[in-house]
C-alpha cells in the first residue's frame, strides 16, 4: 500500500549540500559547502526539482542553513554560514539584454529597491527583457561564530528571524522596512552559555538584557554593539577533547583557511565539532513568541518566551537523558523541530541529538479552564515530558555515531528522523488498536537505507 517512490535531480553544487528548504510558492532552496545557494522549482514534466535553476555565490564560506520567510512577506530567503553572517535574499527584476544570463554570480551589493533598474527612460522598457535574480537585501553581522541554525518566526509576529550561532547566542532580528527589506534590527541577543541549568529570565540577571530595538542603519552598525559582549565563544566545550573532537580537528583547520580571513579573528580557533546548535519557533501564534533553542555541548533544550514588551523568559528546560558513553553529560542537541498545532491539549517538540537518537517531547500548555496543580507546573504554566525516544534502526552500521536531524511535515503527522545512513518516517498512532508500545510506528516501507 504505502510506498516510498524516489526521483532524482542533479544540482550544480560541487560539494555536499548542507541544508534544504521548500517555500510554499513552491521553490526549493539548497545551500552547499561550496559557498553557493541554489533555488529551483518543480519541473512539471519530469516531476524533479530542477526547473529554472538559479544559483549564486552567497557567502565567503560554506553556507550551512537556508530558510524561507512566510509567503506573506513575499519571496525572502535567509542564509547563514561559517562566515558568521546572516544574509537575506529577495528576488528582484533585472533588465538585461537577451542572451546575457545573470544567474550565476550575481553581484552581491546591497541594492535599494529598484536601484538596479536602469536609467528611468520612460517607454523604452519594452525592448528589454526582465529577468528575476536573487539580490542581497541585508547582511546581519552580529554573530561571533558560525551560523548553525536559523528560522523565521510565525508571520503573526511580523518579519522576525532567529539564529543560533556557535558562539551560543540566540539572536532575533526584526525587519523594520518590509518594502525594501534592507533594515533589520537586533531585538534579542541572549547568551546561552551563562544561563543556569534551571529556567530563568533576564530579570534574574543572567545573560544580556535584550537590546533596545530600533537602530537606524544597516547591519554594519550592529557589529559594534555586538562586539561589546564579553564572549569567548566555544571555550566551554572546546576543551572537551573527546575522540570525536580530536578526529575532527584536522578538517576544521582547513575550514578556517578556506573560508577567508574576514571571520578568522572572530572565531578564535573554536573547535565546533563537539556541540550542537539548533532552534525552532513555536508554530502556534496563540501562545506568543516562543522558541526552543539548544546550544553548545550541554544539550539542554531551552524554551524561551520572547514577549513583546517584557524581558525574555526562559520558562522551561528539557534535558535529554544521557544515553551514550561518548558524552559526559547530556548529548548535544543538533536539531529541533516544533510540530504544527495538532488540535490537542499539548504541543510536540522533536529533538535530534548527537548520540544518534531522536526524541519527541510533549509540552503541556497551561489549561485554559484553570485550576491545575500549580506547584507541579513550571513557570509560566508549561510542563514538558519526554514522550518517545527513537533510536536509529541501524546503529550498528557505520563507525561514528551520527547526529540526528528531525523535521515534521506540514500537518504534524509525520516526523522524519534522519541520521548518517537512514531516513525514518514516523507517525504517531492515534488509536489504541494500532498503538505500539512506544506509541510511534514507522510508516510502512518508509525506512530508507543509504
Amino acid at each position, binding site marked *: 500500500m504505502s510506498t*516510498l517512490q524516489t526521483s*532524482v535531480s542533479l544540482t550544480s553544487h*560541487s560539494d555536499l549540500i548542507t541544508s*534544504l528548504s521548500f517555500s510554499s510558492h513552491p521553490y526549493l532552496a539548497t545551500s552547499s559547502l561550496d559557498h553557493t545557494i541554489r533555488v529551483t522549482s518543480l519541473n512539471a514534466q519530469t516531476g524533479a526539482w530542477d526547473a529554472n535553476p538559479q544559483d549564486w555565490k552567497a557567502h565567503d564560506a560554506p553556507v550551512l542553513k537556508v530558510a524561507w520567510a512566510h509567503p506573506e512577506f513575499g519571496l525572502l530567503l535567509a542564509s547563514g554560514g561559517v562566515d558568521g553572517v546572516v544574509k537575506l535574499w529577495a528576488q528582484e527584476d533585472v533588465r538585461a539584454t537577451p542572451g546575457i544570463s545573470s544567474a550565476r554570480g550575481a553581484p552581491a551589493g546591497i541594492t535599494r529597491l529598484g536601484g538596479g533598474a536602469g536609467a528611468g527612460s520612460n517607454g523604452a522598457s519594452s525592448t528589454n527583457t526582465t529577468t528575476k535574480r536573487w539580490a542581497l537585501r541585508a547582511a546581519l553581522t552580529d554573530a561571533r561564530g558560525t551560523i548553525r541554525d536559523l528560522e523565521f518566526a510565525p508571520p503573526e509576529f511580523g518579519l522576525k528571524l532567529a539564529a543560533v550561532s556557535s558562539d551560543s547566542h540566540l539572536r532575533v532580528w526584526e525587519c523594520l522596512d518590509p518594502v525594501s527589506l534592507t533594515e533589520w534590527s537586533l531585538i534579542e541577543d541572549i547568551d546561552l552559555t551563562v544561563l543556569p541549568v534551571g529556567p530563568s529570565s533576564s530579570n534574574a540577571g543572567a545573560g544580556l538584557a535584550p537590546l533596545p530595538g530600533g537602530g537606524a542603519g544597516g547591519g554594519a552598525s550592529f557589529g559594534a554593539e555586538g562586539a561589546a559582549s564579553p564572549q569567548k565563544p566555544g571555550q566551554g566545550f572546546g576543551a572537551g577533547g573527546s575522540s570525536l573532537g580530536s578526529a575532527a580537528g584536522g578538517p576544521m583547520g582547513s575550514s578556517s583557511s578556506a573560508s577567508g580571513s574576514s571571520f578568522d579573528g572572530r572565531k578564535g580557533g573554536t573547535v565546533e565539532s563537539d556541540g550542537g546548535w539548533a532552534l525552532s519557533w513555536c508554530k502556534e501564534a496563540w501562545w506568543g513568541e516562543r522558541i526552543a533553542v539548544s546550544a553548545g555541548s550541554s544539550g539542554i533544550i531551552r524554551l524561551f518566551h520572547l514577549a513583546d514588551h517584557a524581558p525574555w523568559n526562559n520558562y522551561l528546560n528539557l534535558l535529554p537523558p544521557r544515553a551514550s558513553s561518548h558524552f559526559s553529560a547530556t548529548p548535544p542537541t543538533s536539531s529541533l523541530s516544533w510540530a504544527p498545532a495538532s488540535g490537542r491539549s499539548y504541543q510536540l517538540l522533536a529533538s535530534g541529538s548527537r548520540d544518534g537518537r531522536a526524541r519527541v517531547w510533549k509540552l503541556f500548555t497551561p489549561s485554559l479552564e484553570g485550576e491545575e496543580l500549580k506547584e507541579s507546573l513550571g513557570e509560566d504554566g508549561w510542563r514538558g515530558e519526554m514522550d518517545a525516544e527513537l533510536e536509529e534502526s541501524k546503529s550498528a552500521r557505520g563507525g561514528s555515531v551520527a547526529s540526528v536531524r528531525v523535521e515534521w511535515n*506540514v500537518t504534524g503527522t509525520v516526523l522524519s528522523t534522519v541520521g548518517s545512513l537512514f531516513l525514518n518516517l514516523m507517525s504517531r498512532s492515534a488509536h489504541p488498536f494500532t498503538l505500539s508500545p512506544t506509541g510511534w*510506528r514507522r510508516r510502512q516501507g518508509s525506512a*530508507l537505507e543509504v
Partner: protein
Amino acid sequence: MDSTAQAVQLQPALAHTTGQSIALSTAFAPNSNLIALVPSPLETQLTPSTTQQRQLVYAAQFAVDHSHRREFIVHSYTLFASLQKIAQDGTTDIYGAPSQPTQDQLSYYNRIIRLYQDALVQQLPIIQADTTLSPSLKSHQLTHHADLHSILSLTQLLYLPNDGRGDGLVGEELLDWVNTVDRAPSAEEGEELADLSRPWEHPNFWPYLHRCILRAHLLSSSTLLSLLASSHPSPILRDLATLATDLLNTFPRSTAFRTEAEFLHKLRIWKAEANKSEKRAEELFAAAEEDEVLGADDDLRLDFETSFRCLFELLNGSESRVLEVAEDWREALGAWGVWVNPGGRREGVPATLQLITKSHPVDSTLPSEAVQSSLILGDVPRALQQSNLLSTWLVAHLSDLLYHLGVLDSPPPSSSSSNSYSTDLRTHFLLSYTDLLQSDPTLWRVTVDYLAACGEEGRARMRGVLKGVELSSEAAERVGEVEKSGAEEQGMDVEGASEKENADPEQREKENRQPSVVEEVLRVCSEQGLEEEMMSVCKVWSEQLIAQKRYGEAVSFCVRAGDSKRIARIADRVLEEYVVHGQESFIAHVDSIPTSLLRPPSSSLHRDLFGASSDDLTSASRASSPMGSDEGAGLQAPFSSRLSFLARYRDFFAFYARGDRRQAAGLLVLLLTSGVAPKGFYAVMLLDVLPLLSAPTTLDSLLITPSETYELLRILEELTSPISATGVDIYGHLDSLARLLGGGEEETGEMRTKRALRQLEVVRGELARHLGRCCCL
C-alpha cells in the same frame, strides 16, 4: 515499532568520496507527501572537500496508495460528502453521537453503500483497459477491488438491509452473497458433464452435483439428475434420480413468495415430501442388491448409495452433511440459510457462524475473509481493524458508515485525560485516509472535506493543508516558462491594461484561472470558519500579485485581509512605478485599483477637501476601471488615505492632459499643501509645478496665486534646508526625484542628490520669478 519496515535503497546509490562519511538532510514539501533528501556533511566536517562533484537531490514520495485512481477517490468523495449531509440532518444524543438513524436516513445510507459498490465496479473495466499495468499488478488490483466490493456488499446485507429494518429472512441473501464472492462450482464443469453421454461415470459428477445443491443451483442439479433418470441402465437408479429431481423442482425459494407465512407453509409441505422421499430412497437402497446392474457390482452400488444418501440428506438439511460437503465456511453459511435453517434471520447468523467455524475455521491470513467473518459475528471494531490491513479507503468509508448507523462506539468523552491520544475509530481511520490523500496536491479540496469530518484534530490539520495549497497555477506557468521563456518575459514588461490585450490566449487563460485557486481556498476557509487562514491567504496572494505588478487586484485582497499597512506599501510601489517607468505606467496602475477604494463614497472629508470639481473625472475613471465598484463597498477611509493620493495625482495628470490647467494647478497645490502626499514625493510634485507658472497676463489668469506660491516656497525650503545644512539627503526627500531624473548606472547617490538639488533650485528660481510677476500685475 513496526519491525517489518523494510529498508529501501536509494537509486542511484549515493556516490561520495571514499573515506568521507556523510549525513543526510531532509525537507518536507509543503503541499504533498514528498520529502527531499540530500547527502550532507557531518557536523564535524563542515569544510569544503577537495574533490568536486555535482550533488544530487532525491525526492521521495511517502504514503502513496496506488490502489485507487484519482477519479475513484473523487467519486467516492462525493458519496462521502452527501452521506455527511444526510447524517447532519439527524439528531444526536447528549454525547454528540448520532442517535438511532431514522428510516429515511437508513434508506439513504443503503443507497450510499450501493453507490460505493458501484463506484468500485466502475473501476474494473478501467483497470482492465490500463495498458501501463503489469499483468500481475492488474490482477492484484482486480482482486483488491473485488475484495472491497464483497466487504461492502456484506455490510449492506447485514447492517443496511434493503428493507431498512432487516427483520426478513436472511438465508437467500447470504447465499446470493456467497455465490457472488466465490463463484462455485464453475459453469465449465457443468457444461463438461452435460456433454458426456454417461456423465455419472465422471469422477466429478457427484461432487459437482452436491456443490450445486449446496449453492442452490437447483436447475443445474436437476438437469444433471434428469440425465441419470432418463438414460441410466439401472431402473432403481432411475427411480432414485426421479425422486430427487422431483424434490428439487418443487423446492420452494423464499424469494418467490410475497409473504413469509406463505413460504413457510409451502416449506413445511415440501419438508414432509422430502422426508417421505428419503424413506422411499432407503427402501430403494435395500432393493438395490436385486438390481440387474447394481447387484453385480457392490462397489458401484455402495458408491451410488452413499452419493444418493448424501444428496437426500442435503435436501433434508442435515447439519453434519452440509458441514461435510461444504468446502469452506462461506459455502456452509450460504447453504445453512437455504437448507438447514431456511427460516433464519439476521440475529441468528452469528451463532450459525460460530457453529460452522468449529469445523471450517476462518483463514485469518486472508484479510478479506477475516473482515467478513468479523462483520458477520457483529464484532465491528475488529472488522475495522482488519479492514485497515486491507485498504485505507475501505476502512475510512466503512467506519464512517457504521458510525452513522450507530453500531460503532461513540467517541470517549473528551479531555478525560490530557495524556490520551485516542480518538474514536472513525476519526482515526478518516485521518489516516487523509494522510494518503495528501500525496496528491490536486486533491486538497477533498482532503479538507474529509478533515472537516474529523473534529478538532481535523481542523488543526486542515489549517496545515490549506496553508500548503499552491495558490497560483504555477505548474502551468512553469511549463509555459520552459516553452517560451523569452516571450513570457517580454509580456511582463508591457504595463497595465495593455498587458491583457497583448497576451496570447494561453496566457490570458492562465491569468483567468489563477485567482480561481485563491478564491477556492478562500471559499473553503470561510466555509470552515478559518478566519486567520483566510487573512493569511489574502496577504500571501496579494504579495504574489504585487510581485507581478497587478496592484489593483493586490489592493482588493489587502482590503479583504484588513491589512492597511500593505495597502500603503502598494501605494508606494505605484508611485515607484511613476519614478521608474513614467506617467503612463502610473496611470495604468492607478486605474487598475478598484474605484470604490480609490474614491470611497463615504469619505465626505475628501470631497470637501477637493471640492466637486473632479466629480466628472471620477465617473470617467470609474468606467475605465477593470474592477467592479462593489468590491470594497462599505470600506472606509483608513484604507484609502494613501490610495486617495494616487487617485488625485492621477486626476492631476488627466486635467493637465486635456488642457485644464486651472484645475490641474489647483489640485496640485492642494495636494502639496494639505499634507496628503507622502513626503518623499514632494520634490517630484514641485517639479510638476513648473509648467503651470508660465506667463500670466492678468490677475484672473493666474493659475497659482501669490499666497500659494509662498506656501510652495516654504515646502521647498523644508525639503532642501536639511540637505544644504549637512550636505547629505538624510531623510531621503530627494530620493524619488533623483531617480526620476535618472542618470547613468555608474552615478553615485551623492551625484544624483546634487542634480536633484539643482533641479529644485530651478524650481525655486521659477517660483520666485512667478512671485515677482504676480506682484507686477
